[in-house]
């Protein structure tokens, strides 16, 4: 892979969009484009509904909204097969849905219900769908990167094929666990594709305020794996870069590192005062909405017409409402289930505090 010379995203002055995918899009099957458009829209509408129900105090705790970054999750997860694995950090709703988690299981988890993907014990930051090879939502910044190496180890040595796609944010690049993981993955030639979603800010700290070398992919270069920086809001570019990285990880058993430059439309979490970035900056990014770019492409190339776009929108709206209703109607977990799932086998009674 080439090392692009694009300028890095300083928090505020995130880079200009690379040429809006004409060439990369050309190779993507129109059906795949429609599928990915639908996925992006599902994530956006799910997240915006989360925002609403959070304000209604239906869900608690921390809640990190993915809106604005959909092209990264969808463009990277769509090329994967069922044998592959996905693991991510705490802003995990988008990846979970892109990987196939139902909106019902996702929303019910936010409601803390027994029908949630983690039986109401994980919450927003700890979504899991292990049968679907979605290996979590992880709450501690950077702590899941070594886990991704272990998943890569298991893939490689159990001979079942596949790759592990490991997402994390720009803030994680300053954590030791990330660098330990990158080193191990390269040292042991593990089939892990690392994806740094650089949305410009680690909580409220712009990349340039947190990293001595703010070109994130350059830091990964020192681990002797192919690195590439992509315009993360351009679905086509993301998709193409991922296909290449995944193919190499799969065939050559070696890791790769992708930096996807993107932007979150909402705050870091629901309690973000937003004082570290201007309204103008946010609006400028919203005008380059990754979903809008895909819609433009679909219409321009007559893959979908206005009616087709509208039909998908209303289907997704209905799905989101169904997920909310399902979550509202779902039972609260039995309090006794708090004592379950601590161990596979525990030879003492946990209720007796033993």
């Amino acid at each position, binding site marked *: 892979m080439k090392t692009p010379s694009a300028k890095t995203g300083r928090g505020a002055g995130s880079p200009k969009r690379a040429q809006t995918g004409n060439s990369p899009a050309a190779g993507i099957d129109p059906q795949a484009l429609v599928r990915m458009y639908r996925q992006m829209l599902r994530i956006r509408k799910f997240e915006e509904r989360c925002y609403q129900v959070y304000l209604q105090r239906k869900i608690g705790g921390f809640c990190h909204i993915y809106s604005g970054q959909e092209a990264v999750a969808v463009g990277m997860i769509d090329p994967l097969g069922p044998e592959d694995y996905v693991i991510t950090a705490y802003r995990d709703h988008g990846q979970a849905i892109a990987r196939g988690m139902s909106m019902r299981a996702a929303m019910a988890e936010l409601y803390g219900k027994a029908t949630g993907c*983690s039986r109401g*014990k994980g919450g927003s930051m700890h979504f899991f769908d292990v049968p679907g090879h979605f290996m*979590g939502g992880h709450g501690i910044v950077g*702590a899941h990167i070594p*886990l991704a190496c272990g998943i890569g180890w298991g893939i490689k*040595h159990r001979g079942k094929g596949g790759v592990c796609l490991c997402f994390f944010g720009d803030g994680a690049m300053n954590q030791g666990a990330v660098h330990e993981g990158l080193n191990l993955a390269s040292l042991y030639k593990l089939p892990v594709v690392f994806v740094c979603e650089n949305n410009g800010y680690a909580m409220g700290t712009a990349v340039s305020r947190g990293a001595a070398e703010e070109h994130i992919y350059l830091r990964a270069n020192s681990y002797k794996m192919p690195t590439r920086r992509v315009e993360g809001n351009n679905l086509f570019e993301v998709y193409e870069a991922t296909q290449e990285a995944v193919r190499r990880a799969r065939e050559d058993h070696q890791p790769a590192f992708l930096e996807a430059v993107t932007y979150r439309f909402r705050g870091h979490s629901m309690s973000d005062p937003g004082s570290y970035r201007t309204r103008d900056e946010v609006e400028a990014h919203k005008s380059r909405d990754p979903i809008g770019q895909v819609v433009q492409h679909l219409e321009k190339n007559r893959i979908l017409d206005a009616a087709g776009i509208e039909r998908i929108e209303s289907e997704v709206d209905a799905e989101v409402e169904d997920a909310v209703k399902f979550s509202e109607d779902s039972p609260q977990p039995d309090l006794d289930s708090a004592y379950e799932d601590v*161990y596979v086998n525990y030879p003492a009674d946990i209720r007796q505090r033993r």
Partner: protein
Amino acid sequence: MAEIEFRKALNMAIDEELARDPDVFVIGEEVAEYDGAYKVTRGLLAKYGARRVVDAPISEGGFCGLGIGAAMLGMRPVVELMTFSFSLVAMDQILNNAAKIRYMSGGQVRLPVTFRGPGGVVHQLGATHSNATESIFAHTPGLKVVACSTPENAKGLLKSAIRDDDPVIFLESELLYALKGEVPDDPEFLLPLHKGRVVREGSDVTLVAWSKRVHQAMEAADRLAADGIRAEVLDLISLRPLDQDLILKSFRKTNRLVTVEEGWSFCGIGASIADIVQRQAFDFMDAPVERVTLEEVPMPYNEAMEYHVQPSVEKIVKAARRVLYRDVKESTDGR
């Protein structure tokens, strides 16, 4: 049955489990080409190759996390920590990831990973290399904590730990590695992880210890016997869960209890044992529980100071005499 060194018993356990299950692999610092910092993994690289016996860089957070991730896929990693003092570097991986991922996923994953290595104080290594970490791990739901004390139980327990479907903290002791004892050759020799044992029967006072302190407690029991005091010595083995039945049965017989631990007193395992005893056998108490622990200081380097602040045979004997009201003039707690 053969008489072998403690480290060889551990080596046998790993060797047999590597042979038995292709999902087992060993990873850690110097475990392969160097044959193990303490030679526990000697010869395993030559026998099983670099895919199964894996040298890791000095990167505890990294390779502990790798082990946990591989366990998420069903592998059975045996992660060697050169000493459990270095586990402090990997605490987030062990306490947050190994201990909680099963729970946070609503039971979707099993984490059959074993973290093993020597724990506690050795000899004049100073404060950073002398940590007794068991109370930290035993404090955390999601982990099982086991301490072996003889070559025989080292083998039987490590094999059970590797086969267990939950994360196990497996504590050894560098000072025991050269200890010799009879060890069954049977590759199916397994000991339960949650059971302690009575090492010596007695009726006057119960001494509770684990790992190398069991041997000190036994020496103390010999000295007490010379004064006609019959001490019962328990080897807890399992620190999470605690074998409460064993402790309570003994206490109901002796009515007096001394706990011995290598860690600090405050928030120590002995405190939990005292809590269990006062709640569940209050009517059987003839004296307050005595705890012999490390003094509340970082481990000093100086040899005499190092000895002075640790539990010792003398301190155990004195504590036992105190709970028997034999030395009432001595009132210094735990000394």
